[in-house]
């Protein structure tokens, strides 16, 4: 005990004054059976996934958006079957019918009414369907002056289908807009999800290879991305659609052709960042294969960013498809999509404004919900990023 130069703590620090001046009575050896703990953990260990989930459900906005998304997806699945009218069933006699909903019609809204202007002499033709007479006015024409009547009529009674209900009205070909809206939602979402899935798969593989191995493959793909990103996307998209034809499958192809690069770039950055960490080196030293190292040690770090990116790119695809539909390049004709319904509604906007309301509301809800959920996901996966 006299030669205290050689006695030091485990980490090399010399012993402190309090330890050196310790009297033999104070020294007590640790018994083998004794449990050595600093502080006992009172809470149970929480896994990463559970932790993320807890942070995710904490935000009310995120939960509301998740519910909205699930509702829209549910309606996309069962919606077309709820209405007695098929989404392809045309009836030119019943075109441009305003919306009419059971119950609500008694309140005077969504009652299938339309204001029309007729000559006074035709008044008896409309006798059984008048809701309200809005008065008369004079019109001067080449045939002399005539008296016109402005009537609010029940268009459903007028067409002799007083017991039918088109909840969202009908379009210019007499197709039920309710069925069409949810069928369109289904098509749009199907397109968006398949594009995101394909982009994710390709992007993950290519990004992982580029980020982990680097080298000439990485160089080549980086240069390719430089070129593709500088092509204005709109002319390229239009050209490709012209080349492949329009329809769901060609659209998926067009969106994926350049879309995977965004995902690949994101994944590459993440892999590049984490590949030189010590735990990755440790895993390799212990002899695990490259695939195992990537899957077990690097990917979990990147998974939050990737999932967030995916959630945010779903509404993007819906949005782009809608834009293309406006130009007549979207999904093929009898098959509706949200964008198609919007652009049809746009054409009839001034005469039948009700046509654009429902698809407009659905697309806004979709975009809003996915954006908010994406933000919620980002915060849940990476709380340090939260502002």
């Amino acid at each position, binding site marked *: 005990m006299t030669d205290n130069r050689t006695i030091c703590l485990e980490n090399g620090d010399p012993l402190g004054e309090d330890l050196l001046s310790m009297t033999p009575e104070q020294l007590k050896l640790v018994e083998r059976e004794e449990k050595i703990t600093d502080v006992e953990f009172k809470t149970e260990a929480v896994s990463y996934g559970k932790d993320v989930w807890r942070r995710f459900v904490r935000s009310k906005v995120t939960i509301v958006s998740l519910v909205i998304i699930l509702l829209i997806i549910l309606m996309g699945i069962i919606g077309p079957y709820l209405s007695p009218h098929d989404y392809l069933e045309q009836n030119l006699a019943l075109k441009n019918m305003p919306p009419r909903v059971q119950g609500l019609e008694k309140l005077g809204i969504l009652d299938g009414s339309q204001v029309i202007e007729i000559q006074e002499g035709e008044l008896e033709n409309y006798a059984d369907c008048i809701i309200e007479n809005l008065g008369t006015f004079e019109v001067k024409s080449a045939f002399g002056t005539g008296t016109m009547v402005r009537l609010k009529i029940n268009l459903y009674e007028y067409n002799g289908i007083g017991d039918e209900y088109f909840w969202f009205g009908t379009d210019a070909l007499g197709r039920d807009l309710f069925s069409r809206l949810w069928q369109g939602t289904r098509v749009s979402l199907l397109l968006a999800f398949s594009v995101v899935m394909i982009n994710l798969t390709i992007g993950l593989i290519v990004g992982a290879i580029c980020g982990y191995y680097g080298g000439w493959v990485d160089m080549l793909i980086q240069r390719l991305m430089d070129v593709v990103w*500088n092509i204005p996307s709109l002319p*390229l998209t239009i050209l490709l659609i*012209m080349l492949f034809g329009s329809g769901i499958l060609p659209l998926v192809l067009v969106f994926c052709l350049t879309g995977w690069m965004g995902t690949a770039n994101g994944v590459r950055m993440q892999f590049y960042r984490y590949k030189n960490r010590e735990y990755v080196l440790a895993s390799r030293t212990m002899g695990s294969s490259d695939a195992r190292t990537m899957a077990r040690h690097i990917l979990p770090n990147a998974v939050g960013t990737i999932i967030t990116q995916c959630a945010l790119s779903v509404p993007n695809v819906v949005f782009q498809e809608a834009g293309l539909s406006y130009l007549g390049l979207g999904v093929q004709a009898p098959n509706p999509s949200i964008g198609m319904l919007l652009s049809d509604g746009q054409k009839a906007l001034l005469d039948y404004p009700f046509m654009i309301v429902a698809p407009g509301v659905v697309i806004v809800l979709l975009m809003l919900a996915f*954006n908010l959920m994406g933000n919620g996901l980002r915060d849940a996966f990476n709380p340090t990023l939260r502002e």
Partner: protein
Amino acid sequence: MLKYILQRIVAAFFTFLVIVVVVFFVLHSMPGDIIDFSPKLDPNVRQMIINKYHLDDPLIVQFGYTMSDYLHFDFGYSLKVRPGVPVFQVVLERLPVTIQLNYLAALVILPFGLFFGITMAIKKNTVYDHVASSIVILLISVPSFVLAALMQYFLAYKLEWFPLILSAEDHLTWTKFYSMILPILALSFGGIASIARTLRAELAEVLTMDFMLLAKAKGFTYRQAITRHALRNSCVPLASTFLYLFLGVLSSSLVIEQIFGVPGLSKTLLASINGKDHWLTMGIVIFYVFIGLFMAILADLSYGIVDPRIRMGGKKND
């Protein structure tokens, strides 16, 4: 610095070449005949057209001819959309209205985006910030064409405050400007929202940095500290956004142009692709690509100006 600029220009030139090649071959491998004027077309005339445009030659030879024309700044003639008019002239004619629309939109976007971004960051976590943030999220989520339809119906049709579609005058007169207000608004809301959101996040982060405390300790007023130190730092990620604003709106405006009946460049592009007017399509795409690459170089350079550290990092030794 000069070396860096030259490097960028050379890289951009090669990108340009690759894109021209890709677009040319995609365009010319589209199904259908370039000449489908009429079944009554005299076979001799048809043969003449084929000879003139070398349509009988292999694609690669046609590509050679086209490229040698381009090297002489001859972009050919429009075949169908504007028969007989040089492509260059078509672009020049269609450009003003597109540029007016987009740059006026950018003029709306910049001040409002900056204003809301800065005020939101300064008043972070106040009622103002929460309200403004919700509006920003809403504006990002509402597609511009839905917004355009809403405004067209309520402001133009119901209230009759604005004209429904763009006035057809050639020059920028008061009535034309008046009819441009709605499309400009439709174009700018999304831009304002995205700039405000990015700037808020960046600025809020910079405001917590040590050098802001130092600036305060040096005796700067709050305003001075924000304008001289905080804004400059938070503008780095926005530098490219500002520049791409002038380009990005250029392509996103197509739907808006369609809704408001604007006879702009993108409408001509769509018509030329639909009508297989290949020379016109090539001309317009080349124009877009040129502007895009130019903006990309400018964006790279602006990073260096806004943040000198990036310029040093870009070079390896000297």
